């Protein structure tokens, strides 16, 4: 992607994009509702009014279907799952446990309980990293936040499963690992750190 050509686009996170779309749509809906209420005092013969509304509905139906279809076709190409992931340059094993993270370079055959690792790790920036994420006890969620507090990648850590998450740290710096699945009282202190070098 030629992100340098579009600095604005590059700064547009998925969160801001969602917020923007939502805000615009919500304002339209509020505007239409207000219009509907304010104009309802005028009286129109009910069959004529109905006919007009249902005429509009046909167009709305087609319009919405087209928008949703286009959005589906585009968005279903950007999935985070294994089949869509870039070839990894490096693998990292991550085990979540109440209430800390165990991370170490390389893949591991050990069970999540046996596995040893640290909740702080250094990884190369600009490389495709594959995180193999498991849990030693309950459900957790391995989420990476950048230093501006933006959630940039996540996958669940489930007992009995290994989820593979791909992420390329775009720049050097410190990233936080945060647990995004409620996992018991001290859930909020379950953090780790990744230094992208």
């Amino acid at each position, binding site marked *: 992607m030629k992100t340098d050509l579009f600095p604005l686009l590059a700064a547009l*996170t*998925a*969160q801001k994009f*969602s*917020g923007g*779309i*939502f805000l615009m*749509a*919500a304002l339209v*809906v509020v505007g239409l*509702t207000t219009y*509907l209420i304010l*104009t*309802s005092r*005028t009286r*129109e013969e*009910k069959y004529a*009014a*109905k006919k007009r*509304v*249902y005429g*509009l*509905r046909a167009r*709305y139906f087609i319009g*919405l*279907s087209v928008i*949703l279809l286009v*959005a*589906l076709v585009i*968005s*279903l190409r*950007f*999935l985070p*799952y*294994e089949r869509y992931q870039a070839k990894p340059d490096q693998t990292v094993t991550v085990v979540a446990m*109440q209430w800390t993270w165990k991370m170490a370079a390389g893949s591991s055959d050990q069970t999540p309980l046996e596995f040893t690792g640290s909740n702080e790790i250094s990884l190369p920036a600009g490389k495709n990293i594959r995180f193999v994420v498991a849990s030693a*006890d*309950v*459900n957790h*969620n391995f989420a990476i*936040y950048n*230093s*501006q*507090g933006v*959630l*940039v990648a*996540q*996958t*669940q850590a*489930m007992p009995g*499963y290994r*989820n593979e998450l791909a992420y390329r740290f775009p720049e050097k710096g410190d990233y*936080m690992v945060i647990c*995004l*699945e*409620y*996992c018991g*009282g001290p859930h*909020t202190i379950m*953090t780790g750190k990744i230094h992208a070098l």
Partner: protein
Amino acid sequence: MRSENSTIADGPGLADIQQHKKLMTVWSVTFLILFPLLIVLGLLMRANQGEVVKMEYSTFYSLMTLHGLGMAGTLFSIAYAALSYLIATRYVKLSVALGTTVYFLVVAGVVGLAGACLIGKFGAGWYLLYPLPFIGASWPQWSTGLATVSLLVLGAAWLVGSLHVVLALSKKYGGFSRLMGWAYLGRQEPESELPPIALIATVSLIPGILAFLTAAAFLILFLLQLFEPSLSFNALLLKNLLFFFGHTLVNITIYLAVGWVYVLFPEFSGREWKLNRVTVYGWNATFLFILFAYFHHLYMDFAQPLSLQYIGQIASYMSAIPATAVTIFGIIAQVYHAEIRWTATPLAFTLGGMGWVIGGVAAVVDSTIAINKALHNTLWVPAHFHTYMLAGVVLFILGFLYYLASPQESARENTRAGAGFWLFVIGAYGFLAMFYLAGANSIPRRFADYATMGLASSHQIGALLAQIAAAFVVLLLVGILGVFWGLFVRLIARRTPPL
């Protein structure tokens, strides 16, 4: 289940109607008491997240659990009760004894949950995500047991209640295909009309019945695990079961509420609202989407089969079409140039429709897998479903209660919405806006506070937004207490007309 007089599959009698009125009044008063209490729990959570008050983790999460289960259960129950009431007083005879039993079972379930959460500090969240209640829990096992049994009681009550309504409708209108409105899909007009509420009740309650059975299976596994700790079930399977239940419950709460909007709005607009081919297609499609949309809760479980992830997004997207093109356009056709007197009920219904659509937009955005990876388990999620619930369902309920509280239940006696109503609406949107802003700023959900995230900016933003939200909740609470007091007085004063 066949009682002597219900073999005459005719409409309900007068004595019957009086009894259903009484039962509905009891449900309503219970709601007027329970709902503000559950809001107070929400206020306490936001105050803790805003660091205005300070509570233990275990307290926060037990309040969160009680709030979530309590709200979802209360709203479903009142939605079910109101729907049954309208059906029983207008279309089909329903058993008062069964309705009363459902009421007492629900009350017992709620009391049990309150005990488990407030005394036993049960704090697994509404979704009891297996195996959390059994590993590293900070609460005693008995409270997990009590919560599980209480939920089983609630589930049983809803199951029996839903079965009763569907069977009674089916007896009168003639079987599943009739209730699904398929007679409207042929070339000719059907010989006998099907009221929209019958179709909507069927489309909602049949998935509901499946959901309650699923919940029962899930909860029984929980009980087994409690008695035999060495057992271990597949966490992904149980998560699927749980979300099928939870998603369906909340989803059909909205649809049940929509059911009475179809019945009552015509009395205010003077325009009929009947089934036709389009509405029947729409609601039949909705039936499928209710069953398959829940997969969107498991997008971040990469181990879930890929095809289910696709189905989740497609079903979630598609569900927007019938919901808006059929029901929202139905409301527009009711309102547009209809010279409506904007008393409380039509106003609440129209604003409720607005909230439903706004929450729906946020839901569709979040049900996009490519976006969900940035929003999943942030406050965006509570933002969207609180919009559905607070700015949608609760307004539909208010509209119904305003109608119910008028002496003869007529459009003419409907009161105007007062200052309390507007305080509620403003407070609600202010409170919701803070959830959205927090979600767009990646603030996590189910965080007792944001101090330990290791991100100073997130901590600051999260806490500030929570404080502002808490202030709006206070407005909302003042407003709703005013509205509820008025409703309470009028409901109690309402004399049932002599037989």
